[in-house]
């Protein structure tokens, strides 16, 4: 029931935002922000009551949906899904607050869609039935399509079509896999499914997750969607939606298909490693702020996939920590990018520069987030990447070398971004009177940064509280207690 409330708060608020004719945009935005904060508060209350020593599903609810195929409304939280739902709730608060500050047109539908997206994403992290998982998974598509298509930049129409067709093609392959897998088991309840040896079913799932994440070479939709979406929608896409894909690998693809995972480990790791290096290189070459963040996201998802497919304690722990880290970092970066674009009406690096002069808060926050993003030792991203590389080392030292190279590349693209925006001579698009970060922006991005700093001091807040302390055993036993 508790988990259902976590989904129902944003969902109910979304319906209220759509159906009630809101007089003022402040009222609509304020209501949305309150709902997002209420959801976050509810999550904090749940996290406080969560029993981390206990490996089984918690706060679960099971109600039969249709009995003949064994489909049910079954939701609940594992310890690692608790972190991801928390990430979603936090990023949603940031996105709504930022959207309010940015003054989006038609606030009722806009914030309603963002909250609907949050509800669907939390549903993905909480669903314990394959078909329910798919329902939430597809429900994420509709708000994203409309958010980008209506409120996006000039190239939004092409971006939405590419995004929708790419991801639908992937997820429909997953639907076939779900049906074949579920019919073979006689139930769609994830807590009752057995393992399966079919590589085809496995690949159907992986296709959906790889497209949504995205992982190279399925990232065709990524640059346009991340560039054209409103900044806070890009933040949600890269911060949270991509985690839904990584979560799918972790919750479904890896535990239920041990043989295909073992057989296909080398090709999958190769793809992830290529994506890691290729994404980093593209980020280094990207001509605009969002391009850098978008391609760094592609690289980071490659790294997370490497950690997941190591399927050992260190790799899994690191992957989950890195999911949380990247969610916070890319949200903060996209919101900062949005702020920069509002001040200069461009994101092109060659037109930017010198923003640090007279704008100390912007400079400090961007540098702080950037330094965490490039995984400087002592940061939480460093902890995550270290665990991932440590985990994959046991599968072959070569993978670790590639990963280490990519960390160097990360330093290159982050520092390039920082210097191109903040340093050098003032760019031609930078107006003299452009404001420093406003208090609301500081509070939004600052709170994300605060969480990142907290995790940097204590990454074990996440890593000691996932998988009941036994990652590999938990995942390979399909999360059975």
């Amino acid at each position, binding site marked *: 029931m508790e988990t259902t409330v976590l989904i129902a708060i944003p969902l109910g608020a979304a319906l209220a935002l*759509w159906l009630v004719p809101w007089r003022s945009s402040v009222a609509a935005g304020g209501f949305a922000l309150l709902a997002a904060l209420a959801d976050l508060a509810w999550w904090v209350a749940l996290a406080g009551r969560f029993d981390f020593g206990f490996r089984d599903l918690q706060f679960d609810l099971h109600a*039969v*949906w*249709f*009995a*003949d*195929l064994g489909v049910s409304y079954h939701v609940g939280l594992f310890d690692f899904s608790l972190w991801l739902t928390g990430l979603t709730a936090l990023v949603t608060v940031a996105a709504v607050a930022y959207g309010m500050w940015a003054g989006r047109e*038609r606030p009722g539908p806009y914030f309603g869609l963002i909250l609907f997206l949050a509800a669907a994403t939390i549903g993905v992290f909480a669903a314990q039935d394959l*078909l329910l998982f798919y*329902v939430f998974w*597809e*429900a994420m*598509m*509709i708000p994203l*399509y*409309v958010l980008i*298509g*209506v409120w996006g930049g000039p190239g*939004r*129409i092409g971006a*939405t*079509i590419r995004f*929708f*067709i790419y991801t*639908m*093609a992937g997820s*429909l*392959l997953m*639907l*076939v896999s779900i*049906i*074949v897998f579920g*019919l073979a088991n006689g139930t769609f309840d994830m807590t009752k499914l057995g393992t399966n040896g079919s590589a085809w079913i496995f690949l159907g799932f992986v296709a959906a997750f790889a497209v949504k994440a995205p992982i190279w070479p399925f990232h065709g939709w990524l640059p346009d969607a991340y560039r054209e979406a409103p900044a806070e929608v890009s933040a949600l896409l890269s911060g949270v939606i991509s985690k839904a894909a990584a979560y799918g690998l972790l919750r479904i693809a890896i535990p239920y298909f041990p043989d295909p995972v073992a057989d296909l480990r080398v090709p999958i790791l190769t793809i992830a490693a290529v994506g890691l290096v290729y994404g980093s290189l593209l980020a280094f070459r990207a001509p605009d702020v969002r391009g850098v963040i978008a391609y760094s996201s592609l690289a980071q998802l490659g790294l997370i996939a490497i950690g997941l497919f190591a399927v050992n304690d260190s790799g899994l722990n690191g992957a989950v920590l890195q999911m949380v880290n990247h969610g916070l970092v890319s949200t903060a970066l996209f919101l900062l990018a949005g702020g920069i674009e509002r001040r200069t009406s461009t994101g092109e690096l060659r037109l930017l520069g010198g923003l640090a002069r007279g704008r100390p808060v912007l400079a400090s926050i961007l540098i702080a987030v950037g330094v965490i993003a490039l995984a400087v030792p002592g940061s939480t991203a460093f902890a995550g990447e270290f665990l991932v590389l440590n985990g994959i080392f046991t599968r072959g030292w070569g993978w670790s070398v590639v990963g280490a190279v990519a960390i160097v590349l990360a330093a290159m693209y982050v520092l390039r971004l920082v210097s191109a925006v903040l340093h050098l001579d003032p760019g031609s698009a930078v107006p003299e009177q452009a404001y420093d970060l406003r208090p609301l922006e500081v509070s939004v991005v600052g709170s994300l940064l605060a969480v990142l700093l907290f995790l940097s001091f204590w990454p074990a807040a996440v890593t000691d509280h996932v998988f009941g302390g036994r990652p590999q055993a938990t995942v390979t036993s399909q999360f059975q207690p």
Partner: protein
Amino acid sequence: MIAFARPTIDWGALSPELVLLGGVALTLVVPLFLRGRARRGFSAAVALLSLAAAAVLAGVLATRDSASTEIVATALRRDQLAEIAQILLCGSGVLAVGVSLAERESDERVGEYYALLLSAVGGMVFFVAANNLITLFLGLEWFSISLYVLTAIAVDRLPSLEAGLKYLVVGSFGSAILLFGSALVYGATGAVRFAEIAAGRPGRPDALLVAGLAMLLVGLAFKVSAAPFHMWTPDVYQGAPTPVTAFMSAATKVAALVLTMRVLVTAFPGQADLWTVALAVIVCISLAWGNLAALVQSDVKRMLAYSSISHAGFLLMPIAAGNALGGRALLYYLVSYAAMSIGSFAVVAARERELARLVTVEDFAGFGWERPGHGLALGLFMFGFVGLPPAGLFLGKFYAFSAAIERGWTWLAIVGIVATVVSIYYYLGLVRMMYMQPPELRLVPAGGSPPRDPALAATVAAAAVVTIGSFVAAGPLIDVMRDAVAFLGFPR
């Protein structure tokens, strides 16, 4: 002299048909003595009441029937399959009345319009209960002739007349093929009753029987508007008055598909290997042709017509699977499909009345913001047609694919998926036009407030409620559908 024993007739089982025929008589006669608004109101009220009464009667029968029994000698069947289909048909009729209410047809023909609508529903209600080839053909012609005239009822509009003529010619051709097929089947087996056809000459490959089966399939595929027997569909859907199109797109599919399943499963179980494969081929052609042709349509009704051809493919998929899961899938799919189809055409009708012309996709630019209610509903239907939650059609597709996969035809499900991916482009094209079109292309309708049409708004709302309700309440609905097809001996 042949002794003729009068059969005992179960009048109770015939009550839905009788109520509808009573409605036909009333709407034909009484409006002659009324004028203007009274005539219009009376006809619509009678139509609404008799459809609702027929639906209730079918519902009462459905709760009483647990087995399938033959009534009126052996001409018809009384079972839950027929009764569920009858409820769906009457429901479609009710929604169609809601769309028709504010249609600008002349007061002179309004009585006939509702009489024909009731007669079409009556024919379909009779048709889905058919138990032999003769009643099958009678029912088919009964509702088809009503639909031919309904299509052409806007006699002052040339496209309507043209559509009516086309439908008449092509439809009669289909009926003729079906009739000839029936004759061949009779020749091969010496029986017209479905069960006797199944029992006659078992196990022998029989060219006559196979040819008859093929022609029956073709004749039914005409009515389902499955490709390659769909040629009439786009022209008729486009030319017919939009409320008629709304009704036709939903009800004809329900009737023809339910009867196709009944006839194939009860009369031709021995030939299952033939007709499942034949249907699978028709499924693939319909999915391919319907979706590809829909991509290039600019007229919304034409686009929806091709979409209905592609959905004929999705709907035939569970029949092709030939298993009990498929039977459930078909009936469940039809619930939300019928609601969404009528709902979309209702919104199109609203836009047509506003702009006073046939509408193209471009005419929907900015529609979502101008008419939030209609826009939201049409958006729901379009996302639903793609197969996204929270539309019941999503679970319908899930069931249809499940049936094909259980049959071992994963490839058929994958064909369905490719078709779905293609369909995204044109369904979302309409959504894009409604919400995302840049303002410079937006057509501003001639001033004034939009026409108020509470009946149509209520219809759209009801269709949206059924669309979402069938998703939420999938469990109980599927239990009902399972019981409805439980007595059919599926070949697999």
